[in-house]
Each structure stands twice: as C-alpha cells, then as structure tokens.
C-alpha cells in the first residue's frame, strides 16, 4: 500500500506479478524506489517506495517493467503545475 504522501503521485507495486528484476529501481531517474532488504513471500527483494516526494510521474518504471507490476498514478503537486 502506498503511504500517505505530500506529492500528488502514487506508486503501487503488484507483488503478485513482480519478479524482482530491479529495472524500476535502477532506472528511476529520481531514486524514488529501492530494493527491499527483506525477502518477500515470493522470495524476492521487491521494490519499495522510498522517496515518493521525488517522483515526477515520468513513468519510466512502468516502461521498464516487463511484468506489468508497477503503476504510477496521481497528479503533480499544485506547486509543480507545468513542471512534469
């Protein structure tokens, strides 16, 4: 579940589909995601949202995910209108 955040963007990982490839963590330009330090139920170091405030909604994580396991929703913050 995404935590209560100050940014307008939200990120959800579908842990049923995620295989822990790490693409999203690696290629997020703003280091919003990190790999969990604990194995999850499926035996994977899954991505977790570490810095949602840094998210600009570029959706590169979605584009690098081959398993359709991550989604970005929401809108820019009011003070970021026009800067996406």
């Amino acid at each position, binding site marked *: 579940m995404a935590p209560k955040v100050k940014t307008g963007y*939200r*990120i*959800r990982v*579908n842990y*049923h*589909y995620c*295989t*822990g*490839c*790490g*693409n999203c963590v*690696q*290629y997020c*330009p703003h280091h919003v995601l990190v790999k969990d330090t604990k194995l999850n139920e499926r035996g994977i170091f899954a991505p977790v949202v570490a810095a949602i405030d840094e998210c*600009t*909604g*570029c*959706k*590169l994580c*979605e*584009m*690098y*995910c*081959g*398993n*359709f*396991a*991550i*989604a*970005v*929703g*929401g*809108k820019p913050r009011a003070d970021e209108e026009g800067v*996406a």
Partner: protein
Amino acid sequence: MAEAPVIATEDAEVLEHPAIRYFRFGAPGSPHIWCEGCGIGQVFYYTVIAIDELGLDPNKIVWVGGSGCTGRMCTYWKYDYMHTLHGRPLGFATGIKLANPELTVICHMGDGETSAIGGNHLIQTARRNADVVAICVNNYTYGMTGGQYSPTTPIGSLSATSRYGLVEDGFDLCQLVAAAGATYVARSTTAQPRPSINYIKKAIGKKGFSFVEIVSQCPTFYGRSNKLGDNSIAMLEWMKNTFVRKEQFEKMSPEERQGKRPWGEFVDTERPEVVASLHRLARTQREAYRG
C-alpha cells in the same frame, strides 16, 4: 526528460499497470510466461502505448505472432489475434490486410522467426511493401527452446548449440530489410523506452511495410551464456553501452565502431504498396469489365 505516456489509471483505490487494460487473461502465466527480467513484456507495453497514443480503435487491430517467446505476444492481446506458424506471421498478415485493408495488422516476431524460418516472408513482404507492421524483438537467441543461436546471434557467442563459440555471424536485420525494400526501418532497444514507442507509433501510422527491430534482453539464456549478466539490468547496461545513435556511429572510425552497433531510423521513404495497389487494380478492372 522523456514525455510521460498518455495512458494512466487515475483510479483512487487500485493502480494497475496501464498495459493491463489491453491484456488478455486466461492464457498461461502470471500475468504471462516470460522470464524474470525478460524484455518482451516491455515491448508489449510499448506497442500498447503506441496504439493508445495514436487513439486507434483496438477492435480494428489484429496482432499476429508465430512460435517462440515473442511469438506468444499476440496471445496476450485482448482483441483479435492470430497465432500462426513459426516464421510465417508476415504471410498470414499480408492475407489479413488484403482481405480488409481497414484493419491494422501488427506482427511481433523473434529474431529466429524473423530471419531464419521467416527469412523469405521477411524479404518478400518488404519487397511487396505490404502495409503491415513487423516488430522484431531481437534477443539474439531462441529462447523458448532453450537458448540456441539464431541468424542474428553475433559471431563468437556461446549458446546451447554453439558451445565452442559461434563461427557464423549474424544479420544486420535493418540493413537486410532496408535492402529488400521496406519503407520504414528503425532499430531501438529495451533500454530506450521512449524511442521504441515513437518508432512503433511511426511504424503503425505509416503506409507500407514498417520494420522496427527492438533489441531486448534475454538474461536467462543469451545473457547468462555470454557473461553479460544473469539479470536484466546487466544486459540493459550492455545495451546502453553497445548501441550508439546512427548519426554518431556514422562518424566513428572503424576502430571506434568495434563492439558498437547503430540504432535509429534507417529508412523512412515512400514506395508503391501492394495491398492498396491490388485493390486499386481490382476496382479498375471491375469497372472496365464489359463481359
């Protein structure tokens, strides 16, 4: 910064990856059968983004595939699909388009499908300049059958059937298809999402045979066998280091080109297109018929 794709779920409760809207459930896998780190899922998404950004009616889009990992891409498309025989998507696709030129026909084929068993269909479809889209996911391997080499596998590569190092070199698919007459030829990689999407959009929107090669990672076989890493990131990094923009590549000396490959748009031109021509011929002859 890459432009954000248009599709997004604004649902307040459950966010879903946007590809899911076009995804056919019921076929094997969770959500599909491709390996951890495989790039084929990415190409599925790029195609779907392209269709969405072009605002096309998915009911008028037929996906065609053949055998192999990439060949199964069509079986996950929610709308009409035709899963055909290994190597032959382009033949079936030409038939579909001839029957109903209003349809958009998109073929996803692996490197073996495209250039080994499918080689003749590839060059013939390019020669005819049939108005279908061919997206070749080139991961330099036959993944489904366990990682044998293909006609695009680089010389020296290790694979399930080249344990001592491959003694043949691979096609430059874009050069091959360009020489055969395609009117749009482009290459990108799964390490370049936005260009890939743009090329696919252009390919779909353009009349004539459009060929987009997307180099992709197969960490399970090609990557592991050739010490390029057994995960997707290592292979994506290899792609980022190996592929240079066509314009840059052209300026490089032969020494600088060692170990590098060009990406970009190689052909973007116009030529007579067979489906439109045959329908025009039919109209003309029918009108001229005097019994």
